[in-house]
């Protein structure tokens, strides 16, 4: 199939269609409006249904219903809208339903601004909603990867009967890059879901529920869920760039910032500095073991994000004091240039260890 030039948002929408998703419930918010816009045009073409809900609260609860009825479905939003969906995420995880959430992050907190940020890392990886649950979080760095991970997100959501989040940002969402859709599946060819509420004629009724008033039952349910989230560790994924040798500085970054880092690294390497990149792809589960191994090869670590310091806490926990860990962030929708990041790396590399 020939490559098409598409915006990240559009590629995510098309990937959902290719993955057999025929339901989208959403609400407008910049910088992800192209997703509902794309789905509103595309879904009728394939016999699907598009609903612009009255709010993100409504959209996320519509997902609960659709997923409970056994259908692949997703929603997209950006930061403030994702906050509105937090309760539904908790209910969906508790009820063990497969749903995909897409967050095209913008600058916060509050209403903030419309430009890109990575300030929802903590929200995404530490829960977002209440209670003992996790989201499986995938962070693409290119439009192609956004399409690939979006398709996989549906499979992972079904595999674990749990919500999965694609954590993108306004840069990935708005940029255009060549993309091809490598797989295609029709809804009728999807594996059946015997637990779903599809009509109880001829069988015992299925119940989708998160209320367990009996504390012994709820205790068991919580530990069952915890084991499931631990089992997600087998999905952990990362990528390295020029980080398989001794390094002056190891950059740790994900998403858009990871790709900006590559440009910095290329420039720094021309100057003779040994710099590499560790790029987590799953943010939950976090590739802690692989990161620990990569850190062993480096004298220093620099975590760079579009926030005031979120993933850096997880990196510091992994490094556990064995190397100096520095942080460089831009916020408010400002994005570091490759040159600016490179200058920062040079400054850090000049400090003797």
């Amino acid at each position, binding site marked *: 199939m020939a*490559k098409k030039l598409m915006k990240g948002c559009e590629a995510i929408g098309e990937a959902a269609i290719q993955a057999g998703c025929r339901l989208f419930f959403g609400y407008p918010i910049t910088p992800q409006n192209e997703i509902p816009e794309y789905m509103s045009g595309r879904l009728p073409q394939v016999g699907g249904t598009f609903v612009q809900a009255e709010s993100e609260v409504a959209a996320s609860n519509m997902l609960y219903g659709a997923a409970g009825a056994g259908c692949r479905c997703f929603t997209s939003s950006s930061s403030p809208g994702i906050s509105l969906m937090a309760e539904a995420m908790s209910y969906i995880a508790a009820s063990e339903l497969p749903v995909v959430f897409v967050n095209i992050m913008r600058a916060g907190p509050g209403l903030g601004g419309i430009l890109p940020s990575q300030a929802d890392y903590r929200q995404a990886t530490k829960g977002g909603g209440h209670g003992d649950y996790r989201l499986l979080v995938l962070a693409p760095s290119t439009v192609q990867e956004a399409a690939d991970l979006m398709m996989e997100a549906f499979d992972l959501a079904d595999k674990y009967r749990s919500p999965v989040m694609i954590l993108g940002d306004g840069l990935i969402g708005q*940029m255009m*890059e060549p993309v091809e859709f490598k797989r295609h599946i029709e809804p009728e060819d999807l594996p059946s879901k015997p637990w779903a509420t599809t009509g109880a004629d001829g069988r015992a009724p299925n119940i989708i529920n998160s209320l367990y008033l009996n504390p012994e039952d709820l205790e068991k349910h919580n530990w069952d869920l915890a084991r499931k989230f631990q089992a997600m560790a087998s999905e952990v994924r990362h990528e390295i760039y020029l980080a398989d040798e001794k390094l002056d500085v190891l950059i740790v970054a994900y998403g858009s910032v990871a*790709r900006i880092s590559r440009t910095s690294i290329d420039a720094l390497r021309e100057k003779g500095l040994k710099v590499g990149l560790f790029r987590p792809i799953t943010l939950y589960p976090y590739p802690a073991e692989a990161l620990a191994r990569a850190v062993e090869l480096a004298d220093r670590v620099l975590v760079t994000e579009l926030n005031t310091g979120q993933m850096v806490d997880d990196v510091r926990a992994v490094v556990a004091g064995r190397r100096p860990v520095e942080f460089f962030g831009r916020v408010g929708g400002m*994005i570091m240039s490759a040159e600016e990041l490179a200058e920062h790396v040079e400054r850090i590399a000049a400090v003797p260890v």
Partner: protein
Amino acid sequence: MYSEIIMAGFGGQGVLLIGKLLAYAGMKGGLEVTWMPAYGPEMRGGTCNCTVVLSDRQVGSPISRSPHGAVVLNLQSIDKFEPTIRPGGIMVVNTSLINREAVRKDLIVVPVAANQIALEAGSAKATNMVALGAFLGASGLVDISLVKSTLAETFAGRPKIVQLNHVCLDKGFAIGLTYAAVPAGR
């Protein structure tokens, strides 16, 4: 080869479109490409702009602080971007709307009366095509035939539009050729 190009003008001049055309043509020519629109505070002051990166290897950052080339269609755009272009870079200047000389002496400046040429060819709406043609002629970054075929596909049912755009691309190209230099970027 790694080239970062900025297209800038006021909203409605079609700068985003010529950026997309350049990106499409680059992709068809087997290059890795990105197209990134400015959609925030950078737009204050009247400039609408996009950044196109063309590369023979994976593209890192889709935005650039110091592009290798620029196409500037109005005064605010040359004011904003002229200082940022790398030495030796190409700057296509729409002299129909920009009434000053370039300040930089270390750029390859390609002046082209894009509005006037487009109007004479049939429509001032094709100003952007004249400017894009000039950039292609001067830089040799991407084959103009790839841009023309993309246009033809995009406007498949409207041969007169295709014809007008092709004519304007060619006129700009001919001017750009006279300034032809080593392709922008390393």
